[in-house]
């Protein structure tokens, strides 16, 4: 008989094929998935802008004016435009997946997915209008 097998107290590692760090560049669905995940950075960026805006308002008219002039610089506008594109991408993909994520029942009957998605878009439009009205014209 040949040599006795060697046993260890640890579980052996399974074989896993090495995946490239750039696996998500290979196919459009993978890239779309990763871009959707990266949209969260744009969400965080928007929060940071909001927090700086609040700080500027608290500090007084001069600080507010200074912050507004910073927002008017080409770099700030370019960053906001890119972030806005990503944020819209988040909104659209989030609402479109709502039909799979939420099972809504009314009187025991399942509400069709298209209605759930449409309700999300309707709520978005209404809330956007309300926020704009409060901030600019109410």
């Amino acid at each position, binding site marked *: 008989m040949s040599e006795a097998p060697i046993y260890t107290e640890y579980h052996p590692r399974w074989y896993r094929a090495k995946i490239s760090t750039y696996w998500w560049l290979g196919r459009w669905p993978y890239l779309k998935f990763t871009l959707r995940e990266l949209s969260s950075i744009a*969400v965080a960026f928007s929060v940071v802008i909001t*927090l700086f805006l*609040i700080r500027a308002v608290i500090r007084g008219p001069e600080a507010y004016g200074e912050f507004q002039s910073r927002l008017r610089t080409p770099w700030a506008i370019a960053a*906001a435009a890119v972030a*806005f594109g990503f944020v819209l991408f988040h909104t659209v993909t989030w609402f479109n997946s709502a039909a799979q994520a939420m099972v809504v029942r009314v009187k025991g009957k399942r509400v069709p997915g298209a209605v759930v998605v449409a309700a999300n878009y309707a709520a978005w439009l209404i809330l956007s209008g309300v926020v704009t009205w409060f*901030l600019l014209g109410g």
Partner: protein
Amino acid sequence: MAQKRSAEPLLWALFSIGGTVAALLVPVHLFLFGLAIPLGWLEDPGHARLLALLRLPLARLYLFVLCSLALFHWAHRFRFTLYDGLQIKHLNEVVFAFCYGGAFLGTAAAAYLLWNVP
């Protein structure tokens, strides 16, 4: 023996609620203050109006919820983007601390600012 409770269900719930809040409300805020007002498409509401709005308790609560939930949504999604995209799951503790620590710091900053509105 008592089983250790996982924080994952809570983190997934914050991700989900934060994602909905972000989808509904973040675009209009970014559009107004990042594009429409700086580019002159819409008139600047002015410091006095924004301060008056900030003095409303409901507006402060709204801003706190918006900022906090949106940040926790970012934290959870970005955590898994780093795990899957860059394949750095072995740096789990660092990624976890960076993402949720960032969300906690942002939430604390929002609370501090909104509490100190004159």
